[in-house]
């Protein structure tokens, strides 16, 4: 497949090799992140007027799911400020080359946890409380603070970015869907890596740190676990790391064999459907159940939520592929064919997000002028009335996203089925049914 290597452009290459541009972005993002925490804790408790809610769950989410993930993969992780304070603490420096002697415990994450189950659990913990989290500024402030301090704490116990790699609730699905993005970090010539002494991209050298994401770039075949931190570009003594523009979803040609990744696809697909029903649907009882955390109705909601993503969706999918002919055992077939759900899941999230992002965009302008709800009008937009935007194109755009996702997934299913020599029809039928359900929920 054709690639265009961005890092051949001297300006881009130099900007990525230098630490300063990224550090400048990190600092700006860290200020914004801390401000969001404080706005959540001391600002108005009215969610639609609070910076933390509006900028995190509307502005950031819109940028993440509609732009960053589909077009830049883990582009958000490249500028996310959460690891910055922890890494400073862990390395004892911001820019200086690392000491050989670790400053803290520097433990390796136990093998049992080296998967994305913890990220799925942390995502589900937020998802089950999302009706409260997405509307209550102080809860959002607390969650943001817990993530920041959690990352700092883990930096003192484990090596590298343990929080980002194994615990971040959004890192898991960004990694999953980053496989569809047309951006990748890859080595140029494999043989150079094979013969490279000391593997500085993984172990670090005087030019930078060993891969914070615990990945050996020489073995990268998917975007999933590469956080685009650019350290390997700085440390590679052979200039063998490239940032490429590539076709969309190029990674999906390499099928997943991991059950945690397969379930992540179901978790994200099902969560988008449940959110569409509960947050955007007309059923007040569902909203009440989701909002009244701790009540029996909420426990029922949680059970149904978990049942849909862990039992019902994977169960029907398994039933579909159960009788198909294949040389592979069922578990491996399940994992491989679930790859086909990745484009559809991303498009489900795009379609779902379009609804509330276009509906609530005007809150961004109001919140920008009065981020703490103290009566300011910094940019003259504090009193902009709430007004849904582009409502005429919403339904067509959602339909396009869902139908496009279905076609994309069907094509991926065909390729996956050819790869493992089985039938793609059950997967396509499954995708078709859930797409119909999502269309019904959204439109």
């Amino acid at each position, binding site marked *: 497949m054709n690639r265009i290597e961005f890092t051949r452009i001297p300006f881009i290459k130099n900007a990525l090799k230098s630490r300063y541009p990224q550090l400048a972005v990190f600092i700006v993002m860290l200020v914004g992140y801390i401000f969001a925490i404080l706005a959540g804790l001391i600002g108005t408790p009215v969610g639609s007027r609070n910076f933390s809610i509006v900028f995190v769950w509307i502005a950031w989410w819109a940028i993440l799911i509609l732009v960053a993930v589909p077009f830049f993969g883990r582009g958000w992780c490249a500028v996310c400020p959460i690891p910055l304070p922890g890494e400073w603490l862990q390395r004892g420096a911001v820019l200086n080359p690392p000491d050989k002697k670790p400053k803290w415990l520097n433990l390796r994450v136990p093998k049992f946890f080296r998967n994305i189950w913890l990220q799925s659990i942390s995502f589900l913990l937020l998802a089950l409380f999302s009706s409260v989290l997405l509307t209550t500024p102080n809860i959002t402030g607390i969650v943001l603070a817990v993530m920041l301090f959690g990352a700092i704490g883990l930096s003192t116990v484990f090596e590298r970015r343990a929080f980002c790699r194994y615990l971040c609730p959004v890192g898991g699905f960004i990694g999953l869907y980053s496989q569809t993005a047309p951006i990748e970090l890859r080595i140029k010539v494999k043989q150079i890596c094979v013969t490279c002494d000391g593997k500085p991209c993984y172990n670090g050298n005087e030019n930078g740190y060993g891969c914070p994401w615990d990945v050996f770039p020489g073995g990268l075949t998917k975007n999933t676990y590469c956080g685009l931190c650019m350290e390997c570009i700085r440390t590679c003594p052979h200039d063998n790391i490239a940032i490429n523009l590539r076709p969309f979803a190029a990674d999906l040609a390499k099928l997943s064999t991991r059950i945690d990744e397969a379930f992540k696809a179901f978790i994200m697909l099902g969560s988008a459907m449940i959110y569409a029903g509960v947050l955007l649907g007309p059923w007040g009882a569902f909203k009440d159940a989701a909002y009244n955390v701790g009540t029996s109705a909420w426990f029922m909601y949680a059970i149904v939520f978990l049942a849909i993503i862990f039992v019902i969706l994977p169960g029907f999918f398994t039933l579909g592929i159960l009788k198909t002919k294949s040389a592979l055992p069922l578990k491996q077939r399940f994992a491989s064919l679930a790859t086909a759900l990745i484009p559809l899941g991303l498009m489900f999230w795009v379609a779902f997000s379009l609804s509330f992002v276009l509906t609530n965009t005007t809150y961004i302008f109001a919140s920008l002028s009065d981020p703490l709800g103290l*009566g300011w009008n910094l940019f003259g937009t504090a009193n902009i009335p709430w007004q849904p935007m582009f409502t005429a194109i919403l339904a067509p755009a959602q339909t396009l996203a869902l139908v496009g996702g279905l076609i994309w997934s069907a094509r991926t299913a065909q390729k996956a089925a050819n790869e493992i020599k089985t039938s793609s029809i059950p997967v396509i039928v499954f995708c078709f049914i859930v797409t119909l359900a999502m269309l019904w929920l959204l439109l």
Partner: protein
Amino acid sequence: MKSSELLSRILITLAIIGAVGTPLLIWSRTPLIHAKVAEGGGWNPSIIKANVGEPLHLKLTSDDVVHGFAVGQMDMQSVNVLPGKVTDVTLTFDKPGIYTFLCTRWCGLNHWRMRGTIEVSGLNTDPSTSSGQAPQPAPAPLYVSLSLDIDAPHDAPVIPGNPPSAINGKQLTKKLSLEKFMTQEYYFSHSPYQLFEELDSTNLSDSEKWDVVGYTWQSNTTKESIADGGQLYAQNCAACHGENGAGNGVFVDDLAAAGETSLQTMTGADDMTMQTPVDFTNPTRMLGASPALLQGKISRGGMGTGMPMWGSIFTEEQIWDLIAYLYSFQFAYHN
């Protein structure tokens, strides 16, 4: 340490300190008065200090639903207090005292509990009163000077069969020279039924006696007074007592569901009974109540029931306007 490393550390540290310190500093220097439904805490703060003659600038915001803000016994339009937005209000007091501010929107079941006080100190600057003097104590309200027991039963044993005719009552009053009952002093201190009883000395029929009562009550009020009273009623009373006075306001079902905490009333030292909002269309209850008695009930409130105390909110004139409006549920005034 390299200078670039040092500079980076300083920058990050300053960024963190700035990101934490700046919002905290600004926030601590912008005192807001937060409004929440009473169950959530009501006004915070609920006690505000001010000085006579000095403008008091208030920044009001709601932390939940739409509220309203007004200060009792002040000539001011109530303002909306919107969720997440800030409403600026400037007040100037020309008399010292303790003023009550209140929510003017039916924000929830315990809306009436959303009250706070503004403690105004200094010397009187009101030009209508003696300037520079300490305030004189207000005269005792009529119900106090009459020593009325405003919790005593006051039902009228007899009620009119048909709505009284004030026009007919006017003719009978002139014909029988009953003007002695027309004075405001008499009107304030007697119930319609008491006048009905006093007319026993005449040879009028029961229906004619009620017509005279109707005329007497009409002649002690004006269209403007009833209109003003109606406006006050719609804003402050209708939520519980109903738009048409029948005791069936929008909060009644919620009050009943809330049970004892909202509806109990004291009918003796230890006797608490459940009570729904009063039905002003009930002639037995209304025709047995004098304006002074109603003044007491409105001013003092229900003492632990859902009926709030209005004495610190309404002026005396407003209370008489309101009472005139309440009697209009019984008498077809000015038709």
